[in-house]
């Protein structure tokens, strides 16, 4: 059996591109194995770490997973909770018991006392059943209702770049812009702070989204936030 690698690190590949031959290598991210070979399944950027060949997607919609932290919009009411919109093909539910540690009595309180349509909430996906039913929790800190601030939308595939290694990028953004920022893995980002600082942070995030597949981004964002 021949072991052969057909691509270089940081190369851009298209769906169906042959990445490596042989069982020595392992597919990761948007790469898949067919027979003994490894192929890419989306347009993406190659990252090779030892035996692992990873395809980092450059485009695509958000597909929910259990444990994902997201920013969601209240879209409708149910009997005991709300339905949420998360910019993905699937809808998600938020039960009234999942928004506070305290007991909420619906005999004395209305659902609309807590959330109105169009409000945003920061939470974690707790469960996805096989039939596609999903639920969210916003009980414990830091999950909560998002008041004030602005929501901006970026491609969900750019989120890892916005957060950076061990949160390096997002921490730098928070420190240098002086804003509070919460990043949802579904591509919605909440920014809160003074109006001028907010728009500066949003600008920096848009820059990261645009140039996520290029190197030397940290320096660029730094100089952008420092300048002016």
């Amino acid at each position, binding site marked *: 059996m021949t072991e052969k690698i057909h691509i270089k690190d940081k190369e*851009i590949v*298209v*769906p*169906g*591109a*042959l990445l490596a031959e042989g069982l020595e290598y392992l597919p990761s991210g*948007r790469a*898949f194995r*067919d027979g003994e070979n490894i*192929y890419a*399944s*989306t*347009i993406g950027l190659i990252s090779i770490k030892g035996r692992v060949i990873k395809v980092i*997607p*450059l*485009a*695509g*919609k958000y*597909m929910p997973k259990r444990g994902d932290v997201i920013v969601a919009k209240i879209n409708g009411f149910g009997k005991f909770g709300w339905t949420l919109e998360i910019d993905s*093909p*699937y*809808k998600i539910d938020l039960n009234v018991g999942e928004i506070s540690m305290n007991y909420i009595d619906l005999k004395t309180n209305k659902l609309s006392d807590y959330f109105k349509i169009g409000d945003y909430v920061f939470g974690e996906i707790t469960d996805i059943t096989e*039939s*596609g039913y999903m639920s969210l929790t916003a009980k414990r800190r830091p999950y909560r209702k998002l008041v004030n601030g602005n929501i901006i939308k970026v491609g969900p*595939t750019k989120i890892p770049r916005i957060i950076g290694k061990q949160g390096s990028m997002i921490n730098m953004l928070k420190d240098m812009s002086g804003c509070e920022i919460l990043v949802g893995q579904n591509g919605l980002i909440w920014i809160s702070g003074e109006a001028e600082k907010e728009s500066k942070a949003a600008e920096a995030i848009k820059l990261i989204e*645009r*140039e996520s*597949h*290029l190197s030397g981004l940290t320096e660029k964002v730094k100089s952008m936030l420092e300048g002016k």
Partner: protein
Amino acid sequence: MGSKVGAPEKLIVNGKRLDGRKLNEMRKMDIKIGVIPNADGSSMVTLGGTKVICSVYGPKEVLPRRNLDTEQAFLNCVYGMASFSTPERVRPGPNRRSTEIGKVIADALAPAIFMEKYAGSEITIIMEVINANAGTRTAAINAASVALADAGIEMRDLVCSIASGKADGQLMLDLFEAEDNFGEADMPLAVLPRTKEITLLQMDGMLSTAEIKKLTDMSMKACEELYKLQKKALQEKYETEKDASE
């Protein structure tokens, strides 16, 4: 095929076709990516005089809900011809021909997509023929293939498609309008270039078994070229952005 009224006397003159091509030569193909910013993925494919714009939306919520499939994605392919796409006006809206072609294209694309990964969602592909000069369904498949890749939908492979046929008793690749209207046969074909799996094969006219084999080989060879063009167009989208920032 068709009536012979207005047909040119000969479709092949001195071994060359009326538009100056060799028998096994296809028209120039140009692929543009990201032509519709509001779509999740989009493309425009020009194949000689044929021009198709394709936009891909999704994966998104299935509407109407009766199309929901919990095992795999619902692939909604809409093929249409603009009313100004042919010399004679086309009545706008779906008709028998466009519905059928939409269905055939969906079947040609489905084996390339990881349908099970998008269970319970819908992928909409809208292909609009802006100018028609034979080979619209093959151009639409090429356009849909790159638009799906641009939308970031997980795929096993790209899909390449080309038509071949017979006119003036000679086998030829990628017929244009006169050859299509006054020739003897037309055979569109779509293939997954990695596995050489044929996902679309239609034929209109009369061909012998040996001729079909020859045309299939000819189309397969052309599809290898098309794969390179599609790949180049997709990679260029990100590489031009790279250049602009440097």
